[in-house]
């Protein structure tokens, strides 16, 4: 995918300016609410006309003020998954799914509907009225409907914001699987770094109406969540092959054994571990109540406003620990230092 954008839109006091080129298949747009993300999304989809500039997708001009080109949304083949699903209330789930597909010339229909329905696990919902779906189901149907229209690019406008807590992350595996199986490029718009890290490789950062820069999502997460932000950086760990040890669960993290508190759902999944929940020891502590102790090497360190981020190489896996600069000094931490990372079995939080 190649998306070249250079647009301007003014609304009285507020204006949105975006000039960027994105080429990654999994892109994010990051910014707080009111930063112009939605405006940008509407302009890309053709739902809002920019005052100036041009938009090109894979070499095709979607909008060009000077050449007086402005393709209507139905001809852009840019799909949108809206924040609140926007399913048609007067149609069944099946008819919602087929809405876009039915309007597509036969030779452009590249998505196998049965496969999609299976991936999204919505087989049983097909004949239901959309008013009888849960929030997560609605979003899955909305995603399916957009994918079936076989767009060149799918814009996801805060698709998880309408869902609460756990539900939010439970939908991510579906999203990931759909985008992997049908290889459709996406632009994932969100104010949540966590979501962006789970979904995208590269992100465009927006602030006060300006699309400032693009950077890798991981880089963005490190630069944003260290320092002043309240919760700090979150390590995301894919854990599998759980083993029940009575009151604890033993998981495998790329060859490394980790102990987690027992939960109702002892399955493989994505877990979060706060960078501030990791303690660093110079030597292996003799006795500690924490159940996880990993020998690591410091790979890199970076300073932020008040804290130091320490990137650890744990036998191949990467963890980030946040410590205060005084600790770095006292322990004499530097790239290459051998340390032991210690964290409790209860420090993990399951995302999905």
């Amino acid at each position: 995918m190649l998306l070249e954008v250079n647009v301007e839109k003014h609304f009285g006091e507020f204006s949105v300016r975006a000039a960027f080129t994105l080429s990654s298949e999994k892109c994010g747009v990051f910014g707080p609410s009111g930063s112009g993300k939605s405006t940008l999304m509407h302009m890309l989809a053709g739902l809002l006309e920019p005052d100036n500039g041009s938009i090109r997708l894979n070499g095709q001009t979607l909008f060009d003020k000077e050449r007086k080109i402005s393709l209507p949304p139905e001809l852009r083949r840019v799909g949108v998954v809206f924040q609140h699903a926007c399913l048609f209330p007067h149609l069944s789930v099946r008819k919602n799914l087929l809405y876009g597909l039915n309007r597509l010339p036969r030779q452009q229909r590249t998505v196998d509907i049965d496969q999609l329905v299976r991936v999204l696990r919505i087989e049983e919902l097909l004949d239901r009225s959309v008013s009888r779906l849960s929030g997560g189901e609605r979003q899955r149907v909305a995603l399916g409907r957009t994918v079936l229209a076989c767009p060149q690019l799918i814009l996801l406008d805060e698709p998880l914001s309408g869902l609460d807590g756990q539900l939010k992350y439970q939908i991510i595996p579906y999203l990931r699987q759909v985008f992997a199986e049908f290889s459709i490029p996406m632009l994932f718009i969100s104010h949540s770094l966590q979501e962006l890290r789970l979904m995208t490789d590269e992100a465009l950062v927006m602030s006060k109406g300006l699309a400032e820069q693009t950077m890798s999502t991981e880089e963005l997460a490190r630069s944003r969540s260290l320092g002043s932000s309240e919760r700090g950086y979150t390590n995301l760990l894919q854990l599998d092959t759980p083993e029940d040890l009575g009151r604890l669960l033993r998981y495998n993290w790329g060859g490394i054994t980790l102990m987690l508190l027992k939960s109702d759902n002892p399955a493989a999944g994505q877990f979060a571990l706060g960078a501030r929940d990791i303690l660093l020891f110079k030597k292996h502590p003799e006795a500690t109540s924490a159940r996880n102790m990993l020998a690591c090497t410091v790979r890199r360190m970076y300073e932020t406003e008040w804290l130091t981020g320490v990137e650890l190489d744990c036998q191949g896996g990467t963890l980030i620990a946040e410590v205060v600069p005084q600790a770095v000094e006292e322990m004499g931490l530097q790239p290459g230092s051998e340390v032991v990372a210690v964290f409790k079995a209860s420090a993990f939080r399951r995302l999905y």
Partner: protein
Amino acid sequence: MLSLSPDDLAAVKLSLQVAAAATLIALPAGFAAAYVLAMTKMRGKALLEGLINLPLVLPPVVTGYLLLLLFGRNGWLGQLLALADIRVVFTLRGAIIASAVVGFPLLVRSIRIGMENIDRQLVQAARTLGAGWFDSLFTVVMPLSGRAVLAGMTLMFARSMGEFGATVILAGNIPGVTQTIPLAIYQYTSTPGGDSRALTLCLVSIVLSFAVLLLGEAVNRNLARR
């Protein structure tokens, strides 16, 4: 007492005819006007809205008189229609037009309120899924404003059944041609000894109007259940 003369029957039939024709004729324009008012941003919308609502606040007699000026032999529409040998004044057409104009604001108002409740993003979603403007109008806006359209039509039909002021000016009170139920009642009440016949027609009028409202409500419930 409850017997209807041939003239009375003609009046009932005419009333139904006029109300049905006026409602159907006004529907496309009413839908379009409601769409413009509810879904679009344009300059002078307040002016358009005022113009549409004018018959609602003007005395029907005034509306009728203005229509008479417009469609009369010297009115500009009247002259135009005369070329095609179409007469409006003192004809059934006149009665239909009078009813259509007077009932129009009610129709627009109902449809518009329904349309304003449609989430605009649904239309946007339809567009991004490959539906053109007309397509989204027929497959999203129309089905979702169905109940409002029905309510508007019921209201307008009932209003047309009772139209008097504008009709009597534009179409006159000609038994069998333009004499609808209200005009017939008016005539009976101004004739000595016509009281009981007027009362009979009143009863017919009540029953008909009530039936229309009940029918509209039944269909509305049916639509809501789907």
